[in-house]
């Protein structure tokens, strides 16, 4: 095991640093309080969604409905939560519980999560359209204030990213229950043998995913001040890419919350970087994919060197 293989967090940090340096080099004006906030503020909902996806990947499943779910949460936030806060909160709570139920069903019936969540993405999408047929709604004032707050020293986006990473690191890596949850991804049978109810643990993991999905939706509305049923559809793939970019693995319960947040930041930054390069938007998605492949290849090479 070499240094890089042992400390999986190094590579995501280096990727972000390199990309950030390149951005600053091309656009020195970004190197300011205001510039950083502009670069990263859309990363906050993506980071939350990435954490949500990480919860699912942690228990060896994958969530293809996350984008639709975040859109739905955004629509609820922009309508019910704004007009009737209590009803809005209850709906968001119900969404989280339905995620927990989804996890329990997937485990109990041994369904492939990829199929179930793909199906659910149409349900969430339908509900979102039902709530908000055309783009609109408004952000609750407190949410708007929260997302545009200007803390001293570092801009909101950076502070938020640090807080998200710290909280989820404590929850998933440091705490006892987080350890058991990662154990479910590593070897569910041994967790069951130790007397845990795996179905409850999976429901918990999904509930956490639901919670962070809802938070992502709320953060998004706080930034954009309105919502749309399709506002966050691309989050599904962005969140998966973020988890993997951050050093996570698709199977085996190997995840890193800090890495996931860094992955989300990297992906957001990659989009801005490409704009600074004056790359036509038509090519941007492809270029973003190229960056992703580059980072993953680097990781694979380091891993193989470490194993040899």
């Amino acid at each position, binding site marked *: *095991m070499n240094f890089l293989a*042992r400390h999986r967090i190094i590579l995501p940090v280096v990727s972000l640093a390199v990309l950030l340096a390149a951005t600053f080099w091309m656009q020195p004006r970004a190197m300011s309080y205001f510039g950083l906030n502009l670069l990263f503020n859309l990363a906050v909902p993506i980071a939350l969604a990435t954490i949500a996806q990480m919860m699912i990947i942690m228990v060896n499943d994958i969530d293809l409905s996350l984008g639709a779910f975040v859109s739905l949460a955004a629509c609820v936030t922009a309508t019910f939560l704004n007009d009737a806060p209590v009803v809005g909160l209850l709906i968001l709570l119900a969404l989280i519980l339905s995620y927990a139920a989804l996890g329990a069903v997937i485990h109990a019936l041994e369904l492939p999560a990829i199929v179930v969540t793909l199906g659910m993405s149409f349900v969430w999408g339908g509900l979102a359209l039902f709530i908000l047929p055309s783009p609109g709604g408004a952000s609750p004032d407190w949410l708007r204030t929260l997302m545009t707050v200007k803390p001293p020293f570092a801009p909101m986006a950076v502070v938020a990213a640090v807080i998200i990473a710290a909280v989820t690191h404590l929850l998933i890596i*440091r705490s*006892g229950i987080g*350890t*058991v949850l*990662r*154990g479910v*991804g*590593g*070897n569910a*049978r*041994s*967790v069951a*043998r*130790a*007397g*845990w109810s795996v179905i409850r643990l999976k429901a918990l993991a999904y509930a956490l995913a639901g919670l962070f999905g809802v938070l992502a939706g709320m953060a998004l509305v706080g930034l954009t001040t309105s919502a749309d049923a399709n506002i966050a559809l691309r989050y599904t793939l962005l969140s998966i890419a973020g988890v993997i970019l951050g050093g996570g693995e698709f199977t*085996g*319960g*190997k995840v890193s919350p800090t890495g996931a947040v860094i992955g989300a930041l990297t992906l957001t930054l990659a989009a801005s970087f490409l704009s600074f390069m004056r790359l036509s938007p038509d090519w941007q998605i492809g270029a973003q994919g190229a960056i992703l492949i580059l980072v993953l290849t680097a990781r694979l090479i380091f891993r193989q060197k470490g194993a040899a």
Partner: protein
Amino acid sequence: MTDRESAPLVTLTDAARHFGPVRALDGVSLSVHPGDCIGLVGHNGAGKSTLVNLINGGLAPSSGEIAFDAGASALEAGVRSVFQELSLCPNLTVAENLRISHSGLKGPGWRRPARAEIARSLDTIFPGHGIDPDAEVDTLSIAERQMVEIAIGFAPRGTEARLVILDEPTSSLDAGIADQLLSHVRRYCSEGGAVIFISHMLGEVFEVATRIIVLKDGKAVAERAAGGFTRQGLVDAMGHVTADTPETAEAARDFGAEVVRTDQGLTAREGEVVGLSGLAGHGQAVALARLYLSRTSSWHAGRRPEVVFVAGDRQRDGILPLWSILRNITVSILPQGARRGLVDRAAETRVAQDWKARIGIRTEDVTNPVLSLSGGNQQKVLFARALASPAPVVIMDDPMRGVDVGTKQDVYAMIRAEAARGRTFLWYSTETEEVCQCDRVFVFRNHEISAELTGAEITEERILEASFEMQEAS
């Protein structure tokens, strides 16, 4: 030494477990007292795992009763199991794995006591183990993982381990570490703990067990104090008539041309069975893997492969768990049997049926999933896969791990027969008895060949001599 008056920890009364029509366990009565060390032996499929799972609460009995003296469940009664197939979470650290089975570790700062507890347990059982409690399990070797698993089994975990079930605990440990474990088991039992010890290595069973129970076809066919059995008697009771081991000295056979030669000095000739021996983890597996990879191409699988590989770690790189037995066998020969890129199903079935009969895979139908087989039979499938291919060189990386005596005899005979037909076998084994079956043996020490033995030189003594540094410990 056993206090027969004390209440039994666990009592099974006529416990039975059926899986559909299969009577995995057919009415077993058993009581385990504090201080007992029960050796449980039996054939693959005799019902050992089922019995273990009934005692540890993994399965409910179909009929009969299981009573614990303290608490309603096995967990509350302090029953712990260490399983044959490794059951740690590889993505967690050693200390975190303890947390999984120790719900008493709560609140902030649970790591420190977890680290201390696992380190203490490891130190007690395996002094000088050198395992870091903060190491992730997947960075550990298979022997180290087994040690961690055993240590977790014996760790107090908030209550106290009162009955520890060890299912093939030494299968991936080398002799020195296995001895540490055996002496710990003896010490633990003399202090009032109880152990159920399952092993195919009868020597170990005799060494630790106070009582031996022989299982056969789901029934306990014999139960006696360990002194009441002889090795031969035990094998007979298990129902395997071991034919007198054919003496290896069937006159020096003539071998063909040299077909293998590596930089390390490993050589093999046509028709020869070459053994690799030495302590576990001294480079034998690496040498075989390197040889295999140097002879195969990752780009193009030829119609006539030069070498095939029989994996010892069948969970990791042996069986294809989702496939049927048939497909698991024939996957190595698909290119040979294919016509214009399409699989010849009739030929495939013929090969699978043929090997099922030749190697004695216990199943009614080769289209059953491979996971329906017991471990030993899964290993037979892997042998069939390798032997079915036309490759002249067969590499085997400790293939008999956790395989019962009967299966071993079958496979030895098969290897002999195939070698006589001109195939070359390179066989790494942790069991000296197996190595003694070989025509030539290379003993490894510290990733180098320390001795090459042939014919009558192949004895346990000579191998041990070459495995250990004979100089004074510095």
